[in-house]
């Protein structure tokens, strides 16, 4: 099924090392749209990444640091990158630990611009 987010998610997933890309609702923690590999379950990633992004946003606000620009979580076997805008939507990328974060960041920020 083609949605208004299909092209955006495909361009993110084309980046080397990207395993999955999702657009999630920050408030609900639900998948709005996703580009996943066969067998991947986007629901847990969406719920937890949305929660993580929300906590980061609240923490930044509490510390009077302003809005969150880019969130990156490095783990043993990969990383999660997320950006969110003025609306409730957060773009999430799950990538290999060897993926180029700089490129992913640029693509995420471009995607966010087109989303807004």
């Amino acid at each position, binding site marked *: 099924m083609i949605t208004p987010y299909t092209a955006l998610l495909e361009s993110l997933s084309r980046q080397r090392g990207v395993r999955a890309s999702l657009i999630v609702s920050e408030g609900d*923690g*639900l998948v709005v749209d996703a580009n996943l590999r066969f067998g991947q379950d986007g*629901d847990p990633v*969406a*719920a*937890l990444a949305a*929660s993580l992004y*929300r906590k980061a946003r609240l923490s930044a606000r509490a510390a009077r640091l302003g809005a969150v620009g880019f969130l990156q979580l490095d783990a043993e076997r990969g990383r999660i990158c997320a950006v969110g805008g003025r609306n409730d939507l957060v773009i999430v990328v799950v990538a290999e630990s060897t993926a180029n974060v700089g490129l992913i960041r640029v693509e995420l920020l471009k995607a966010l611009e087109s989303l807004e």
Partner: protein
Amino acid sequence: MIIATVEPWIEAPLKQYVDDARARLALLLHPSGQVLAQAGFTRAVDVMTACALAAAVHATAGELGRQLEGRAFRGLHHSGVEKQLHLAAIETARGPYICLTVFDQESSLGLVRLYFADLCRDLAAAAPPLATLRPPALAADFERDLNQNLASLFGRG
């Protein structure tokens, strides 16, 4: 958060669920409205009311689902200004139960659904099978059983 259960095998899975999903209130009940466990409630009368309403909503939604697509709806979500509720059935060896979860902005529907799936799995694994089939809830016994369960949950057994 205070968690009280009528049957001990429910306690650990329910506590894990409430902690993980960051739920404000949780109730586990029979589809008849008999309470089995509660988390976060402080008054028996609130539990009694919530159980009656949850059982009624579950029955209504189930019947609507059967009318619309031939099978009962599995879950229900209502979103309020500050609080939201999630109501869904759990299948165990002891029969179906209903779980009512109330959460706020500390959690999200996605998180509640995620950990609810774990709760279903954990309760199904923990439930000891019934030696005999549960008799249907009869009006004559309902109030007695309900009062027994409430007394057990609120320490007046």
